[in-house]
């Protein structure tokens, strides 16, 4: 019988990084070494600990990384609590890649890019950011606006400081919600910060974060003159099969797992407001 | 009767006593009646129905409805009043927000029983002196009324309304019912026969949860079977043990609170006689702690919530288990 997508592969966790108090980044390779499968930026994978649960997670690493995949996961429910408690060397099950991806090879090519992320929302964008960094000549300017509750809640802070900020032609704007000792950067919510920064309306926007942040940022972008067709986001809903059959993530005539998770805002506008 | 109910409901809406009415709404056929809330005289005139098929117990809807603003008129049959009283006792309904009109009970009809006779294409059902004249696509059929009566009505326990603000029609009496007959029959079986009986019945279960969701005693905000942390939250039976346990655990949970309204069996798409599990508990409570009818009043302590020095010892389970 042919391989069935519901039957997972084994992945080995080779590195665990404590990113923030409630976010850890897990490095996963196949037992034979190397990546379990290839993916595109924005795609997801189903990770599971049999007996605990299975869940859909964004693949945080860039496809240009040829050695391993990474997943930044926030401790939230039953499965993620288990994942946070495990040690290096633990095997997990993994299947994918699932869903569509950011149109890095088509619509985004040659464009000036504006990434806007809040909290764990950086996870799916990190894949695109690093993809773009590795294929720098294919894209225009890159601006990243990233905010979190506090400095400690900024995911991938080290990578942002050591690598992204060190790159030529990448502008990184960090912000935290409230003033904090040891932080001399911007303080304030992401939507307001974006408006303050007043980015050029020629940019293509990729946004991910809490729904409330997305809502207000989008409103702000529109005030600045951006249109729905310029803004991409990635969504999350309950998923079980990840291939558009189990019915969980159905909104309108779309399945977030299969037709998403990446949507342009004009596409979302055609869907019922059920997310 | 239907006309009297509609007229009284209109009066109560008009004089502001209530602002909603819960009753039954006409369907596509003679028998597919839906519980519904009516908000105006026009809605009542258009769709309100009370006939031989209006069997649904609307008490459970009052858990939600009685917490809304304003007062609601509820038409309750005798059996429904027991459910309502029990819900009042458990502080699930707000009594002050419900205006209760007691209406006569059944025996109500079961469309499935008509269909089981091979009568299909039903277009209309008329009761003429307790003979059903059934108009069908294939011509007229007749059958005795009592052969099409719902199981819950065939073993009716009471024609008495235990709670009401007013009555339409007369109040009745608590009946000498035969409702424990089948329980006794099951008790007289050998353990193996009984096990086989229940295995046969419960293996039909499709875990649709209709019995639980319709049950006026099942009003937990979050059922243990819907809670992923409980370890028993499963929509599919992993094995036959589990398939049985869902119903047995449910029967335990409603023991002493089940008024024997019979809705569980009425709604079961697989016709599992679930009420027999509850009746076994009722019969046992009666024999171990003295006669008790849940929902009869709103103040007494239920036997399983009460402690008396002469309560039977736990060993009773062992003693009774010896064949």
């Amino acid at each position, binding site marked *: 019988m042919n391989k069935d997508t519901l039957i997972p592969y084994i992945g080995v966790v080779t590195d665990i990084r404590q990113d923030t108090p409630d976010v850890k980044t897990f490095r996963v390779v196949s037992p034979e070494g190397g990546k379990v499968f290839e993916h595109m930026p924005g795609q997801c994978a189903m990770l599971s600990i049999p007996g605990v649960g299975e869940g859909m997670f964004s693949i945080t690493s860039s496809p240009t990384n040829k050695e391993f995949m990474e997943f930044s996961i926030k401790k939230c429910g039953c499965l993620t609590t288990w994942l946070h408690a495990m040690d290096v060397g633990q095997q997990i099950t993994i299947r994918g890649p699932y869903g569509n991806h950011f149109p890095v090879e088509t619509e985004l090519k040659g464009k000036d890019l504006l990434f806007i992320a809040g909290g764990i929302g950086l996870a799916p964008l990190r894949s695109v950011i690093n993809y773009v960094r590795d294929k720098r000549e294919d894209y225009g300017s890159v601006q990243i606006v990233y905010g979190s509750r506090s400095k400690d809640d900024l995911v991938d802070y080290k990578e942002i400081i050591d690598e992204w900020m060190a790159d030529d032609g990448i502008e990184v704007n960090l912000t935290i919600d409230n003033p904090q000792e040891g932080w001399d950067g911007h303080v304030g919510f992401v939507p307001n910060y974006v408006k303050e920064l007043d980015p050029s309306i020629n940019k293509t926007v990729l946004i991910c974060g809490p729904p409330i942040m997305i809502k207000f940022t989008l409103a702000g972008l529109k005030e600045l003159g951006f249109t729905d067709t310029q803004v991409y986001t990635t969504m999350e809903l309950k998923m079980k099969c990840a291939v558009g059959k189990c019915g969980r993530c159905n909104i309108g005539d779309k399945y977030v797992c299969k037709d998403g998770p990446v949507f342009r805002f004009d596409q979302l506008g055609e869907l019922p407001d059920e997310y | 009767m239907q006309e009297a109910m509609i007229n009284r409901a209109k009066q109560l809406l008009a004089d502001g006593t209530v602002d909603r009415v819960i009753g039954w709404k006409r369907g596509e056929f003679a028998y597919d009646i839906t519980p519904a809330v009516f908000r105006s005289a026009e809605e009542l005139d258009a769709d309100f129905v009370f006939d031989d098929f209006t069997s649904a117990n609307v008490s459970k809807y009052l858990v939600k409805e009685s917490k809304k603003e304003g007062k609601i008129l509820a038409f309750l049959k005798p059996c429904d009043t027991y459910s309502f009283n029990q819900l009042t006792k458990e502080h699930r309904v707000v009594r002050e927000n419900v205006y209760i009109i007691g209406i006569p009970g059944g025996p109500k009809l079961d469309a499935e029983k008509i269909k089981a006779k091979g009568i299909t294409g039903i277009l209309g059902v008329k009761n003429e002196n307790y003979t059903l004249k059934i108009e069908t696509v294939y011509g007229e059929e007749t059958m005795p009324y009592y052969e099409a009566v719902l199981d819950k009505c065939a073993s009716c326990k009471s024609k008495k309304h235990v709670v009401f603000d007013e009555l339409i029609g007369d109040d009745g009496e608590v009946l000498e019912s035969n409702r424990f007959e089948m329980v006794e029959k099951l008790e007289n079986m050998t353990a193996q026969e009984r096990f086989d009986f229940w295995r046969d019945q419960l293996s039909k279960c499709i875990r649709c949860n209709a019995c639980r*969701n319709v049950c006026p005693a099942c009003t937990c905000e979050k059922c243990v079977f819907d809670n992923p942390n409980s370890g028993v939250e499963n929509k599919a039976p992993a094995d036959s043990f589990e398939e049985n346990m869902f119903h047995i655990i449910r029967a335990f949970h409603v023991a002493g609170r089940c008024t024997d309204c019979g809705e569980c069996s009425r709604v079961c798409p697989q016709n599992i006689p679930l009420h027999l599990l509850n009746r076994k508990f009722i019969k046992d409570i009666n024999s171990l702690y003295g006669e008790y009818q849940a929902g009869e009043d709103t103040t007494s302590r239920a036997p399983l919530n009460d402690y008396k020095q002469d309560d039977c010892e736990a060993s009773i389970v062992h003693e009774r288990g010896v064949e």
Partner: protein
Amino acid sequence: MLKISIDKLDALFEAISASQTLYIPADREDGSAEYKKYESGMKLSNALNTVRSAKDFFFPQTENLVDFKMEGKNIEVIDIREESEDFVIFGVRACDARSFTILDKVFLSEPVDSFYKNRRDHGTVVTMACTRPAETCFCGTFGIDAAAPEGDAACYSDGESIFFEAHNDKGQKFIDSISSLLEEGDTAKLDAVRDKTREILKKLPLAGISTESFGGDKLMEHFNSEKWAELSESCLGCGTCTFVCPTCQCYDIKDFNTGHGIKRFRCWDSCMYSDFTKMAHGNPRLTQLERFRQRFMHKLVYFPSNNNGEFGCVGCGRCLSKCPISMNIVKVMKALEVK
């Protein structure tokens, strides 16, 4: 057309079941019917349809997908799939037969569900034309002819004999396998029976239900309808409609720890259930209105949008007779109909 006399049905069933597993609709004690594995002496039910649909054969209520062995930090994935045995489902009605093509669109689209396909490949669907449709039937609304059912092979009864007609190679193979029991028969009486059935179908109370107001292009219009509040008001939130429905195919995946390994199951699920879309951090469908709406929107709008206008309902009428509060797709269609 090849036929067999009705009084020789026993011999027919014996012959089929001698080479492969046979399922037929059989009567239960309570007068309802269900599909049962044929055993000698079992009689074909006269009931119009079974309580549970025939979808169980290809998409069972519960099935084991995969097993895991956990040892220390290591996990072993055990593929427990086995080639299905060959089987015949006899007496499937036109509505259920169509439901398979609807389920195919879900499970056989990429990526193909191997569990479903395995059973589909090994199952032969032998349908039986209806002669006594019920008041709850409205298959005609979805372009189904109850007097000429689909399936690998179809059977027609004229009251004395059953006639056989193959629709594809699988059906022909089935008829060939029983050909020694069949004889050539005159279909004059059968044609009359079929005409009569079609006359009845036209006269059924739900014959006029139309799909005109529905389809993929009516998405927002119906989604935002104010009617949903009233329609869903008394919904109990149970899964009866979903589980008796031949086309409902949403499922859950669950793990069970058996004590010596983990079994991963797939089981039917219902969008009517409160936890269907519940996530660790919230639930986008908080009330029964949204859940109720989802089920009907999926059948009448979302499914046709993705499947060239085909609706996710076959008009079998099971939800009409089984919903505890008698709320169903017909009432929804009538309420939402654009006049």
